[in-house]
């Protein structure tokens, strides 16, 4: 009989996980610790290994190296026990399109051996909790992206598992769907569930997670609270897009002076980006300087740092322009067409 895990065991603990496909490592030396009742964000670009990590931790893939425990049980040796304590909401909404929302939840309830009556009661509770009561009878095929994702979340919560895995829960959703899913996730957390959430969006990790692990090429390159990470990667940015490429150098100098930070330029997009310390004030200064300098501006945007910029800060500049993280991923040995189809499938 396996010993019962300590009550204080972390929700997820992984040490030196390695997993390869053919002879290419998708995950290598991967470490992670998710405290009980916390939300942990795995932030990384396409192909970083986020889904592979989730699939190892949910017992779908065997690790080739390292050990991991979920809810105190070993994922390799005690898979059945782990499966009793987790909910998985995978990267693709894994609900039946033909069945109604209610029928889906009843199906998963019966597969959790609740019995017909209890499964029906549980389905009604979950529909209510995830704001789907009105649409419970419609086939899922007619749901919006946000509704489908919330149903997917509900299906992962049949037994109120102590640990829930959410793989890119908002990718492909419009802002409204994203907000719906975010508040659903906050609801889970309010109930004390531990959550491991993967995302490509810094903003999402920032909004939802207590701690973030930044993942690149199969291992964690930085870990900390959102505030710690943000202090390492700087604050907001402005983007200035010009009409005329030839004005780029002059405009860059003006923006640099107005913001007090060095700029990055993307000539092919006629775009200048710079960090700003004081948001609106810097923005106003920059726009005024450009106007007085007679530069024709196509667009100005104030925004948080992008994932590219996070990586730029954490790993230093890389060869090539544009998207350093993506460039590194597709520059590997992954078949390019596979990358393409994976991205296609997400839309």
């Amino acid at each position, binding site marked *: 009989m396996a010993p019962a895990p300590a009550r204080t065991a972390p929700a997820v603990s992984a040490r030196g996980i390695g997993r390869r496909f053919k002879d290419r490592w998708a995950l290598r030396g991967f470490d992670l610790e998710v405290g009980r009742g*916390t939300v942990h964000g795995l932030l990384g670009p396409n192909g970083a290994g986020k889904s592979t990590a989730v699939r190892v931790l949910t017992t*779908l*893939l065997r690790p080739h190296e390292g050990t991991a425990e979920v809810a105190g049980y070993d994922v390799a040796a005690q898979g059945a026990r782990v499966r009793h304590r987790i909910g998985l909401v995978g990267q693709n909404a894994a609900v039946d399109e033909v069945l109604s929302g209610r029928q889906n939840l009843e199906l*998963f309830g019966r*597969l959790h051996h609740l019995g017909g009556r209890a499964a029906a009661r549980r389905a009604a509770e979950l529909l209510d909790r995830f704001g789907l009561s009105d649409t419970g009878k419609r086939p899922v095929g007619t749901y919006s992206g946000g509704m489908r994702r919330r149903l997917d979340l509900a299906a992962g919560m049949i037994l*109120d598992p102590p640990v829930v895995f959410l793989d890119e829960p908002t990718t492909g959703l419009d802002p409204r769907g994203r907000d719906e899913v975010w508040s659903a996730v906050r609801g889970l957390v309010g109930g004390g*569930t*531990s959550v491991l959430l993967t995302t490509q969006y810094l903003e999402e990790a920032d909004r939802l997670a207590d701690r973030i692990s930044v993942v690149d090429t199969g291992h964690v390159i930085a870990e900390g609270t959102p505030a710690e990470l943000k202090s390492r990667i700087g604050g907001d940015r402005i983007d200035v897009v010009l009409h005329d490429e030839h004005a780029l150098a002059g405009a860059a100098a003006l923006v640099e002076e107005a913001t007090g930070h060095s700029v990055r330029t993307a000539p092919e997009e006629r775009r200048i980006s710079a960090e700003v310390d004081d948001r609106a004030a810097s923005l106003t200064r920059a726009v005024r300087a450009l106007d007085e300098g007679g530069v024709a501006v196509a667009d100005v945007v104030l925004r948080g740092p992008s994932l590219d910029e996070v990586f730029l800060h954490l790993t230093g500049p890389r060869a090539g322009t544009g998207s350093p993280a993506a460039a590194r991923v597709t520059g590997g040995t992954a078949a390019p067409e596979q990358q393409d189809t994976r991205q296609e499938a997400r839309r």
Partner: protein
Amino acid sequence: MNRTAPRPAAPAVPAPAPPSGPLHRLAWAAADGWTVARRDVTHWLRQPWEPLFGLLFPVLMVLMFVYLLGGAMSVPGGGDYTEYLMPGMFAMVMVFGLGETVTAVAADSARGVTDRFRSMPMSASAVVVGRCLADMLRSAAALVVLIGFGSLVGWQWHGSAGAALAGFGLLLLLRFALVWIGVYVGLVMRGQGGIAVIQTLEFPIGFLSNAFVATATMPVWLGAVADWNPMSSTVAAVRGLFGNPAAAGDGWVAQNALLMAVVWPLLLVAVFAPLCVHRYRNLDG
């Protein structure tokens, strides 16, 4: 935003205890299999046109072969072509079921439903058992419809009811073997690729057999290939059991059709069932 008192949510439902003995585990697997199969039944009820179109196709094939081509067909050794054809059509419907299996399995894999099942505390065999149950139900229903339709166009069985039942049993046994091939192909080639391959192969498999014409009318080497097609054994055995004209060749397989109609499917299951289970446990290698 650290929460000071993380506590598990008040469980709205008591989590059922995991199965204790092997019997209990078997009961869970059976219940899960039935639950999974019921999902398909709900699909058919919600979208009946899909299975109905599936039935229309063999019905059209029968019409085509009986009225369009039937006049030009003669059965070596004599006999009515419709009577010769119908057992072949029954087996053809079993082969068409292969595409249905692959489609269902590949769709679940591609859409993450299979992953969700695998991450749940349900028995690994339940998904495949459920698939099997649903596909057998559907093929049995198709068989019943085609038997009725065959009677309308002049087919009938001449032997005892027992022999006829044995014939239907052999047809379903062939379908049972094809379920495992379909599950395997669906798991290996997720997505549309596998479906296209199977749907393209169904016709050569069907025509390269004794289902539509006697293998004796083919070039010798091709006739030998067709005789060794597992489907041919089932068709020949079923013709014998129904008392329909058989026009069997004189090779060893053709002469031992009844035996081979049992051996072939069992052999296929013996090969593909372990492959399926292995593949399901180790998806992604």
